[in-house]
């Protein structure tokens, strides 16, 4: 699944480590999600959406 995580992160000037800390996951996880290697579970997707203050569908896009 494609996502806008990298853009949203860059807009806030956050590193992958910063985002990982805010989401309480590893930097590895953020990297895997950003690069589309791993699709997060629904609870984690909601946490990401809450953090950016956006609906899930504005962050994760259909292939």
């Amino acid at each position: 699944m494609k996502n806008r995580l990298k853009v949203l992160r860059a807009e806030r000037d956050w590193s992958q480590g910063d985002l990982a800390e805010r989401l309480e996951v590893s930097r590895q996880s953020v990297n895997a999600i950003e690069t589309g290697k791993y699709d997060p579970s629904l609870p984690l997707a909601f946490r990401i959406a809450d953090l950016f203050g956006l609906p899930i569908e504005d962050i994760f896009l259909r292939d």
Partner: protein
Amino acid sequence: MAKNPAQRRYMRRMILLSVAYIAAVMLASWLIPDDAAATLLTVTIALVPALATSGFIWAMASYVAELKDEYVRMLEIRKMLVATGLTLALTSGWGILELFTNVPRVQLFYVFPVWCMGLAVGSLVNKVTIGDGGPCP
């Protein structure tokens, strides 16, 4: 990658269990003579190291259950699935060879070490397929 609390607990448990395992094996080797008959006493003493190996399995299961990071948990579970598949394939294959040919008999003791080596293969599979070998707890 910095160790998370689940990894730290896992390491602590594995170190303690390893010490217990080595001590139990040394004790069993000292108390039970070679080719001893399987009596209640010898079986009981010989099973003490097995408690530690069961402890290793419990520690690994607890580690996966306690991991908060779902991506890392997925990597670990994939490693375990590869290890389990490899172990089943190898032991079943060798078992069939033992049934039909005179290949040397392999002791069941080696099944768990083979599974542990399978974890390393699982890590390699993760690296090749996902580009991430996962943590090394």
